[in-house]
């Protein structure tokens, strides 16, 4: 296979996206520590190359389904970070009007089918989107993101097999960050790679270095083109690592400091990609600093927006259960 030619514009978009995710997540960590963001928050720091490399192949009309660790997918797909930041705060301007929080950020208008608090829950949703695409004769595709832990769960098995027999335009992307909370991958499965599970469903499957955005881009491109061409689903395992705890507040006693440091030093996807862009003269140190600054400003703007937004009102609780009125729905006085 020849390496695909990627425009400078796209390469810079990829770099900017990864930086944006990183800055967003580090800021979210601070906000959580300051008690401004409540609930459970799972950050994507260290895994930026996966969402970015995959989504670089998608257009707005394509769909993705996401996970509890969903900020990176949302940002890569083009989600409005003001709306998501306000959502993290629980404000009425949030993308879910404050009803969802970090585990449920969503933007259907750009094909982002939602983060999900249930591990594996979103996998068949992407398959369903692909069914809609196929029946409507569109040339869009759908991508399901999920973790290594999720690949042990029912929806992985059932969702992929349905996609395979119905030959739907969907790509399954397993972000194998080596852990299901505290359980290392080696104790989840006795095989070496989630990609080996592709054989169960008769679909192409490949394992890729998830810290190398170019590598992710390439395998995703192939799989997505196959899907767009009506050749059915594929499975990609991207080996990655999360640089923070499972959720904010997790002391991560189940892994060594040394292991974490090794990954940070040797496999930071942003450092790796930056080096490549510098070498290729696509990026200068100045450009990079500027991007960093710009992203920080964008995030800060989003934080300000979130902080200054109003809280939802008590009566909002009763809205959005159904598309119809609440008549006959509540029954019990409240």
């Amino acid at each position, binding site marked *: 296979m020849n390496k695909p030619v990627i425009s400078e514009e796209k390469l810079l978009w990829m770099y900017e996206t990864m930086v944006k995710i990183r800055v967003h997540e580090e800021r979210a960590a601070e906000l959580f520590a300051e008690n401004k963001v409540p609930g459970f928050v799972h950050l994507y720091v260290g895994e930026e190359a996966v969402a970015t490399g995959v989504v670089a192949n998608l257009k707005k009309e394509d*769909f993705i*389904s996401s996970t509890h660790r969903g900020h990176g997918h949302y940002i890569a797909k083009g989600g409005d970070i003001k709306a998501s930041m306000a959502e993290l705060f629980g404000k009425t301007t*949030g*993308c*879910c*009007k*404050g*009803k*969802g929080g970090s585990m*449920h950020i*969503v933007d*259907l208008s750009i*094909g982002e*089918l*939602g983060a*999900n*608090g*249930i591990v594996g*829950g979103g*996998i*068949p*949703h*992407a*398959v*369903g*989107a*692909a*069914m*809609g*695409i196929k*029946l*409507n004769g569109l040339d869009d595709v*759908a991508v399901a993101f999920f973790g290594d832990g999720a690949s042990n769960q*029912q*929806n992985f*098995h*059932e*969702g992929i*097999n*349905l996609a395979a*027999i*119905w030959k739907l335009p969907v790509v399954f992307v397993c972000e194998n960050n080596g852990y299901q909370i505290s359980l290392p991958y080696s104790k989840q499965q006795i095989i070496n790679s989630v990609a080996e599970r592709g054989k169960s469903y008769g679909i192409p499957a490949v394992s890729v270095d998830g810290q190398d955005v170019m590598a992710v881009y390439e395998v995703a491109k192939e799989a997505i083109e196959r899907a767009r061409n009506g050749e059915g689903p594929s499975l990609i395992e991207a080996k990655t690592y999360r640089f923070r705890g499972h959720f904010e507040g997790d002391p991560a006693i189940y892994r060594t400091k040394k292991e974490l440091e090794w990954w940070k030093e040797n496999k930071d996807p942003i450092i790796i990609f930056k080096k490549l862009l510098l070498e290729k003269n696509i990026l200068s140190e100045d450009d990079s600093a500027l991007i960093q600054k710009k992203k920080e400003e964008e995030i800060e703007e989003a934080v300000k927006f979130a902080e200054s937004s109003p809280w939802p009102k008590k009566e909002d609780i009763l*809205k*959005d*259960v*159904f*598309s*119809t009125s609440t*008549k*006959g*729905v509540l*029954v019990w*006085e409240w």
Partner: protein
Amino acid sequence: MGMVRKISYAQAINEALDYKLSKDKKVIMIGEDIGTFGGTFGVTAGLLDKYGPERIYDAPIAESGQIGVAIGAAATGLLRPVFELMFIDFFGVCMDQIYNQAAKMRYMFGGKAKISMVIRAAGGAGMGAAAQHSQLLHSMFSHLPGLKVVVPSTPSDAKGLLISSIEDDDPVVFIEHKGLYAVKGPVPEEPQRIPLGVADVKREGKDITIVATAAMVYKSLEVATKLYKEGISIEVIDPRSIVPLDENTIVNSIKKTGRLVVVDEDYPRASFATDIAAIAASKCFKELKSPVKLVTPPATPIPFSPALEKEWIPSVEKIEKAVREIL
């Protein structure tokens, strides 16, 4: 207008599906044995031939995957899936998708998702199908917020409510009682809609209110007819949809008669029956003249043996006894 033709409950449902499939290309069906086989109870017969495998998906046993696919398809707005769960008893293998996904998406997403889909399933006891193939289970779905729940009793209601359910923009659990599939009744040819949330007073009366669902509607009417001869006037209300519930009709009837018997085939504890009883206790207390009666199965799984099953299901005798006890 001529005589209204009579068709079975199963045929009425088939007509509703056929109508919506023919009128709306977004409507598709996913389920097991709904195509070639025509459905375990014959309800989907002929639809595969008419609409082809791109609209009628015969699926491998993977209910969580199947309904997840339906949800994803609905969320995009590209399709309006009708998912058939062969027996409602199988909810357990796909409950997360029914309940944590379909039911809650709209709410969790601040009203931005529209999950237009129907979950059709056969329920009900009486076939000797034992504990894992005989449940009705509407109570549980009404307990859990975010699902509309329909339990039709007559062929005409089944057709009209199913058309409305498929046209509804929210997830609807549509439970078809297996014991009613062969029951025939007048059903208009034209696709009339019956709105969700409107109870049907199957018989008017003034001495006592019976609220009954599905197959229990028939048994309650039998008791009403019998006791009418003794001068006892029973009002029989079929809520038809449990969510939304037509509270007004029920509350007004209880206030009118001052007496309530709830007859339901679902398990008794924390149930549809206790829901209605509690409505009486909290909203009609002043008008209530005697204790509320619940006629339900016992709080046990469903036994296989026909000798036991027929006793497990609420009987006409038990309904009559309950009515007499509070008169």
